[in-house]
């Protein structure tokens, strides 16, 4: 059982205090012919900060996430990232090998569908251990120990370490995907609808666990979600997207409690009271 103590996400500026943002998006845009999926997005993400990107289907939030995580080349603008050595690099100028290395080590990506982020036919232990081997660890016993402790952290019984995730429930798969991502101690995690498709009770447990991990590890994260409750629980800041543009941005509780734009007011007022 995890010792859950963190009740609200605090900015973990102590872990790696820096005046420089970790990731900067500058005038980012993506067009498909005449269709602009994403237009003129600019922001800076600081160390320890969790940013939620909210909006409905088709608002451009997933396109934006793909550009930010170097999986999709922007039509205009650029994304820069401050590497572990302190040098800020433009993602577009990095070679494919460098980008892949970043993806395997300093970044995590949590997909909505765990099957996209896991290898479903190999054991849970191997799913977690694979990322460690990618960063050069080769001692089988140590890898297994680390994998075991990560399974415990995400509340999966170590007895299930040799089972393949296809035998897991949806919530367990999602927790395993999170463990696989966090085992290399990334500084930045991208999450695409991390609680989508899960039962409400399973969502609550997952959210609570993610809050704790993000806060304890001082992670930076960019979370795409259409669920404002997820944004409220996990993020410090939100960007509201509509029609490919960012229409409102600010402190999460400020945007949700005092929304200014018509579309944001509509989103907030559309939540059914529990």
């Amino acid at each position, binding site marked *: 059982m995890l010792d*859950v*103590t*963190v*009740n*609200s996400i*605090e*900015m973990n*500026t*102590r872990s790696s205090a820096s005046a420089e943002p970790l990731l900067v998006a500058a005038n980012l845009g993506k067009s498909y012919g005449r269709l602009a999926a994403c237009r003129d997005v600019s922001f800076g993400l*600081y160390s320890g*900060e969790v940013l939620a990107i909210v909006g409905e289907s088709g608002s451009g939030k997933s396109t934006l996430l793909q550009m930010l995580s170097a999986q999709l080349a922007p039509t205009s603008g650029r994304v820069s990232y401050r590497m572990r050595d302190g040098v800020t690099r433009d993602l577009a100028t990095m070679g494919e090998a460098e980008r892949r290395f970043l993806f395997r080590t300093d970044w995590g990506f949590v997909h909505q569908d765990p099957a996209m982020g896991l290898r479903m036919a190999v054991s849970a232990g191997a799913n977690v251990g694979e990322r460690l081997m990618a960063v050069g660890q080769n001692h089988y016993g140590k890898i297994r120990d680390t994998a075991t402790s990560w399974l415990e952290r995400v509340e999966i019984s170590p007895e299930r370490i040799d089972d393949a995730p296809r035998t897991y429930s949806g919530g367990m798969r999602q927790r395993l995907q999170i463990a696989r991502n966090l085992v290399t101690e990334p500084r930045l995690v991208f999450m695409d609808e991390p609680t989508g498709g899960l039962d409400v009770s399973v969502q*609550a*447990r997952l959210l*609570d666990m993610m*809050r704790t991990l993000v806060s304890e590890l001082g992670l930076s994260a960019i979370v795409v979600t259409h669920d404002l409750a997820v944004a409220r*629980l996990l993020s*410090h*800041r939100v960007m509201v997207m509509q029609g490919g543009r960012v229409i409102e941005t*600010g*402190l999460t*509780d*400020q945007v949700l*409690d*005092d929304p*200014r*734009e*018509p579309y944001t*007011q*509509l989103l907030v*007022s559309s939540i059914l009271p529990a």
Partner: protein
Amino acid sequence: MIPMIDIRNAEKTFVMHLQDGIRLPVVRNVSFHVAPGECVVLSGPSGAGKSSILKMIFGNYRCDGGTIGVRHNGDVIDIATAEPREILGVRRDTIGYVSQFLRAVPRVAAIDVVAEPLLAAGVTREEARARAGALLKRLNIPERLWKLPPSTFSGGEQQRVNIARGFISDLPILLLDEPTASLDAANRAVVVELVAEKKRAGVAMVAIVHDDEVRHLIADRLVDVASFAAAA
């Protein structure tokens, strides 16, 4: 004495786009200051904008005009124009907020809800839990409840957990939104004592209190919010 909070000509209007863009002016020309060790109570009828002013100071509501100066780590920061990360810093190091209702998080034990601001401030888990326990005890929350998530508690118990969470930290500014609303006489007296202790520690407080007796006991000064009415 240099004020901890210095509000000048702050104003707030809600624009309801879903109701044909109707404009609801809440307050304007809000100007007052709060010194260290002072408790200023906002008075005025329901709907005058008292809670809105507290939320503006906390950065929860946007401020449409004027300035909200707050002393933060030796500097003065204007909450009305501060960046989100600056406001988060102010909330971590300077301003605490005791809301009327506890926003309960599933699965988190009451004692950890209370201890959490201390952990965030770098206090060890052991000490944070010990201080949280002492405060819960003072507020008459029985020890057998400490390990349970407060979502299952009664309204009054939840409010006391919320008060403990607000009062546990050593922040120099506290905003109190009806801290005694659903408490019995004994627990109201505890809150009055807690406020007095914070004053002695030099904490600047802004409070909304409807109970006349409690208001009389904690207020150093009243600020009449009706004078900030923003009649359109």
